[in-house]
């Protein structure tokens, strides 16, 4: 049996186990460290002195209980903080101390894991935030904002772990109120189910407006110029010299000077030149004079472009939406909620460089988040149409949110970015950024709901939902409510007493004067706050482990692979218990995996397994990394999901995540990585050129960007991530109270020089000697995952201003050696070492899958389970789907 612990931490297996219950291992500190304690600690903390009421002489080296664990934790903490041994006392050798700290910190992690082992018991699981949202969507067809609910990602590694899924009174009420909104949405959707709507916006309309604006401005400028000329002429008359000199003296500039035109004999009033507003007309004329053709050069260039009669160009502007820096489609007010498709017909101009062929799509306003990014595959001569799915909700309509936008990718993520792109464009041609994308039209069309796509919750009700016809009679109503309850409870029949109360709620509301539709929604919202909807109960009153029933199995399977309730087919197989046959179970597993809904599993699992949330912790500086805009970041994250989805679909080996000769990308990322010949938004497998550093997680922009702070790379973050996620050798959590390294602050050093200071103190070295070299091996990737050969450091003052002589540039040295392991010269060699450890990686995936899939921590008692999954997966070259099959076919997945 293999364990992912350093050799020095030993694990005893007491093999005497009754009735096949889980093995109970004990975790302990290696005896070889006893000398360190005896020599350095026992003097004060032995049987005699017992300083601070703490002794180490009677301390058990096996950590079988919390008390012992706490005592060892105290030793670890006081060594880490440098508090012990006291300065004047004898100190252990640096290496000896580092080794001890390394072992002890791992032993503590193992002890915590062992002591918190649930021994296979799955705690009652509540629907977590995303499962709840998915479940409402499936049941009612309503996509709700559930962000007010707890995100459920804090206290456990995965949001599926029952023990970490809390409940509170607040939450019960939130469920009820979200359900009420969802029912509003669902009823509204149902009322207009078959409705068709279409609206096309011919964007050339915008051009007329520009032309008018520019013409007006230029005409005003022409009048203002004549006025200025007349004032100047008057001012230049010799007889006015004295007055003019006096006025000039007091005026800061020409504008101020001209404000005193009426003191200059013979100077005309601006009103004579058509400036006749109720405001200060001198200022109006001054302003118009300042805004001449030079100011409108970019706009005038725009108006010179071809094909303005049939379409419009996307531009870059620092005014929100100014001069088509975004094109907006206003959804007509009478368009009901439902599924829509947005179509854009567009083409690139001859000026479009490869990176300027993309559109950002979003909702509400130009500065709002990008929801997707698309390649414009057509040209102006042969424009192409692409489609974007869009779901319109009642909530959006109520919030008056009806504005969709398209803009050129990465042209308005931040003010910093806009300025940068404007400056670049001006520098190139003196006027402004070239026009890269021409748009013919934007269109929105509603996709009508078909009979079969009526959501099951609504179908179960099967009664009148509005108030246009009389409300159903009592028996009919009760039957309808019961059908809904059964659907919501995933096939579980409610008790009569529960139904009595549900019906009474409806009747009570009616008696209080509510209309049928309102009373019905209020009643149903209570059902959707009831425990049998919110919890996935697998009752087992006798505490004995038992096999799951078919319907329970269906629920477990579909929440695992879809994060949503089972569909009708799966539920039928569950209810007939056919699903419990291994063959049927495997077939259904394949069916669920092959269904696009399994993307929910891929996303939720990989987001948490690989800690992808870190990608959102930092803002990536637009000045330093102009290429890593919103659209690229979105696609980079998508690459991870799409790669996992590919492995799952094709049952390809997880070793491809360590090293591969292909990537799964779309045209946007191909452009980012410099890979030629990829077209379109769809992600697909693309073979890599021989010399490419891509292929596998370590070459992915998202992974590398997570190992940075948006500005600099962090070899420590990256190294720790590799140990945690790829080598299944996680460093212990960063210890508290380690004395800070301040010695190097303000010095001009390379990254490696600065970080190497970790090796000086045993407390730091114990972990960093393992972590840092791996991080150095990745230094050829910058903070956004692009390849580089040089790096630099700029020392700064307190205001962030660069210090003179504070810059250092160096050629990156990626070489290093794994702690107690192989040496490598560069990234490729380092990746080869990582790739050679597929077994460890596969073990890590397995325990994460167990934790995610079973909804409980993976403890030592799961070693046998881990082993059996690995064995089966290995037979198929570690194909990802094989892991999933093996887990689902295991006993652990099939018992409560």
């Amino acid at each position: 049996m293999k364990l992912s612990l350093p050799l020095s931490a030993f694990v005893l297996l007491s093999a005497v186990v009754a009735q096949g219950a889980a093995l109970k291992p004990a975790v302990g500190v290696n005896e070889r460290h006893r000398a360190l304690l005896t020599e350095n600690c026992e003097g004060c903390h032995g049987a005699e002195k017992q300083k601070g009421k703490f002794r180490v002489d009677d301390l058990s080296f096996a950590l079988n209980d919390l008390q012992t664990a706490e005592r060892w934790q105290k030793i670890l903490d006081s060594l880490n903080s440098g508090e012990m041994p006291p300065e004047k006392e004898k100190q252990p050798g640096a290496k000896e101390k580092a080794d001890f700290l390394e072992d002890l910190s791992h032993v503590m992690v193992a002890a915590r894991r062992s002591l918190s082992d649930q021994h296979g018991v799955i705690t009652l699981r509540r629907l977590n935030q995303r499962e709840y949202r998915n479940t409402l969507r499936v049941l009612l067809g309503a996509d709700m904002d559930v962000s007010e609910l707890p995100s459920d990602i804090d206290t456990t590694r995965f949001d599926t772990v029952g023990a970490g899924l809390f409940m509170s009174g607040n939450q019960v009420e939130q469920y009820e109120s979200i359900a009420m909104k969802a029912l509003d949405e669902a009823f509204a959707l149902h009322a207009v189910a078959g409705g068709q709507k279409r609206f096309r916006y011919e964007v050339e309309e915008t051009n007329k407006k520009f032309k008018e604006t520019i013409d007006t401005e230029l005409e005003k400028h022409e009048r203002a110029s004549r006025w200025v000329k007349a004032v100047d002429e008057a001012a230049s008359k010799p007889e006015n010299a004295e007055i003019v000199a006096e006025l000039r003296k007091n005026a800061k500039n020409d504008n101020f000077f001209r404000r005193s035109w009426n003191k200059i004999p013979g100077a005309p009033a601006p009103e004579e030149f058509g400036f006749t507003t109720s405001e200060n007309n001198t200022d109006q004329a001054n302003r118009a004079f300042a805004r001449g053709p030079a100011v409108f050069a970019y706009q005038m260039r725009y108006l010179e472009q071809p094909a303005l009669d049939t379409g419009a160009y996307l531009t870059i502007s620092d005014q929100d939406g100014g001069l088509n820096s975004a094109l907006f489609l206003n959804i007509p007010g009478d368009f009901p909620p439902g599924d829509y498709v947005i179509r854009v017909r567009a083409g690139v101009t001859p000026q479009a460089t490869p990176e300027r062929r993309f559109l950002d799509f979003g909702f509400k306003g130009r500065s709002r988040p990008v929801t997707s990014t698309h390649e414009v595959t057509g040209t102006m001569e042969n424009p192409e149409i692409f489609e974007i799915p869009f779901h319109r909700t009642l909530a959006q309509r109520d919030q008056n949110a009806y504005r969709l936008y398209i803009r050129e990718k990465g042209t308005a993520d931040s003010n910093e970015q806009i300025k940068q792109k404007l400056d670049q464009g001006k520098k190139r041609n003196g006027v402004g950024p070239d026009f890269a994308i021409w748009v013919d039209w934007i269109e929105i069309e509603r996709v009508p709901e078909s009979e079969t796509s009526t959501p099951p919750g609504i179908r179960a009700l099967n009664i009148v939902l509005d108030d246009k016809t009389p409300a159903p009679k009592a028996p009919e109503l009760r039957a309808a409510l019961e059908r809904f309850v059964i659907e919501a409870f995933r096939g579980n029949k409610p008790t009569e007493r529960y139904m009595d109360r549900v019906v009474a709620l409806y009747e009570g509301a009616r008696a209080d004067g509510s209309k049928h539709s309102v009373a019905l929604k209020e009643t149903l919202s209570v059902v959707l706050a009831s425990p049998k909807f919110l919890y996935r109960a697998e009752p087992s009153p006798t505490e004995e482990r038992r096999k799951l029933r078919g319907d329970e199995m269906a629920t477990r399977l579909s929440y695992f692979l879809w994060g949503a309730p089972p569909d009708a087919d799966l539920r039928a197989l569950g209810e007939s218990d056919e699903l419990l046959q291994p063959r049927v179970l495997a077939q259904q597993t394949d069916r669920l995996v092959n269904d696009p809904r399994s993307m929910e599993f891929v996303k939720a699992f990989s987001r948490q397994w690989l800690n992808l949330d870190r990608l959102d912790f930092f803002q990536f500086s637009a000045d330093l990394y102009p290429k890593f805009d919103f659209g690229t970041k979105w696609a980079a994250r998508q690459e991870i999901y799409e790669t996992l989805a590919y492995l799952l679909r094709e049952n390809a080996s997880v070793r491809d995540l360590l090293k591969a000769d292909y990537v799964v990308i779309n045209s946007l990322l191909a452009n980012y990585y410099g890979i030629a010949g990829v077209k379109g938004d769809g992600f697909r497998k693309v073979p890599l050129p021989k010399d490419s550093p891509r292929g596998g997680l370590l070459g992915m922009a998202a992974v590398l960007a997570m190992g940075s702070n948006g500005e600099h790379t962090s070899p420590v973050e990256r190294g720790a991530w590799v140990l945690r996620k790829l080598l299944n050798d996680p460093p212990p959590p960063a210890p508290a109270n380690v004395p800070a390294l301040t010695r190097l602050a303000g010095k001009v050093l390379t990254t490696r020089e600065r970080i190497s200071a970790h090796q000086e103190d045993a407390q730091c070295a114990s972990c960093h000697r393992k972590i840092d070299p791996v991080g150095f091996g990745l230094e050829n990737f910058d903070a956004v995952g692009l390849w580089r050969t040089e790096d630099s450091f700029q020392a700064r003052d307190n205001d962030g201003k660069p210090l003179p002589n504070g810059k250092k540039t160096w050629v990156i040295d990626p070489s290093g050696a794994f702690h107690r392991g192989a040496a490598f010269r560069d990234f490729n060699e380092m990746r080869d070492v990582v790739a050679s450890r597929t077994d460890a990686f596969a073990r890590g995936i397995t325990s994460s899958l167990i934790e995610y899939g079973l909804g409980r921590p993976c403890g030592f008692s799961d070693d046998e389970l881990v082993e059996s999954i690995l064995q089966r997966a290995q037979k198929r070259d570690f194909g990802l789907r094989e892991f999933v099959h093996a887990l689902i076919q295991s006993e652990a997945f099939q018992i409560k």
Partner: protein
Amino acid sequence: MNTSLSRRHFLRSSSALIALPFLESIGFRRFASAAQVAANPKRLLFMGLGWGLTTETWFPDPKQAGADYEISKGLEPLARHKADFTVLQGLTHRFVNAGHCGSTFWLTGANQFAVPGKSFHNTISADQVAAEHFGLKTRFTSLQLDCGTYAGNSGHGPGLSLAWDAGGKPIAGQKTPVEAFHRLFSGENTPLEKRKALLKRRHSVLDTVLEDAHDLQRGLGKNDTAKLEEYFDGIRDIETRLSKDEQWLEIPRPKAPMAEPKPGLAGYEEIKLMYDIMVAALQTDSTRVIGYRQPVDTLLTSLDIKVAPHDMSHYHSTMAEKFDASQRRDVANSELLAGLIDKLKATKEADGSCLLDHTTIAFGTNTRTEHNGDNCPTLLAGHGAGLKMGQNLVLPKGTPLCNAWLTLLKGAGVPVERHGDSTGVIKELIA
């Protein structure tokens, strides 16, 4: 079956320690209104700072222990209130050995690993201990305010606010000033009769979900029953609140002593507004216990600081702009706190004393700088708990942080003998 009878039975059989207001109140008996409170009530405010602060410049010089100390750079904006606050040095939370949770155990003192078979455990937080005692007399038992963004970015760690209930479960908070304002001051437009009917319906709703919960429970083993207990606890909380709503039904909500906040504020201005809301809540005696998990990430953004929050707390590696950012953050926090103290001083009670005379503020975090959990920065302000203010109180290293909470709670009149891992009160802190 008589609904209210069964509910009463349910409530009585609850094993959780919840101080229930007497049940006769279901008949809408009028409870003491805020205006009728005889003595000035005690109030407690807790403010959690997430990613800590700048050790070198926030703490006053430990060599200048006592009242005669020089105010530190990080506390500079508080100089005018020097007599009204005490800085405590040397407090430690002995169980916290993780670096990224400034708030999770800050008020609880729990050991995450205390329960075998569980990887996360927490216990009741000090504010909730106080709320159990003070909360009976006000419309809101306690108020939880929370940073609007992902709390992990502000270094708070797991949790939904600073508050953890009697079962060690996280309590959710109001995430924006607008939300908090509406919770306190809105919702009185519905006529009384209608509100009575609504309350009655709320009881029927709870009876319905309880029916389902009992049915579910019948099939569950011990472990799952314990988990489902959270649901029962939740319903019990709603029940308690409803019976409180009933008591308060005929007492009109206080008029808000402030304008409705504008939405969309973040960082510095948001914190300032939350402080205004805290004052408004105390002033109207809507609640007497408030906790606030303050934003750090948006505070930095609003101060035009570009350094990322977690990076900032690791300023030792480069000092320079990270160190500067950390110090500017401290000054901003102190400015905000000083502003709050100004307001508490300016708000007068009926007897001419001011709110600060009856309020105590606990301001700090479990994370000092970097991953350090020792010498937890703690500042207590106000005169509501009989604590000795105006001190630079340097305590023996390793004094449990919970000793400070215990002293605070006892001082404010909460009958409690221990809290978390407390070993006793801090005598030097008692006036």
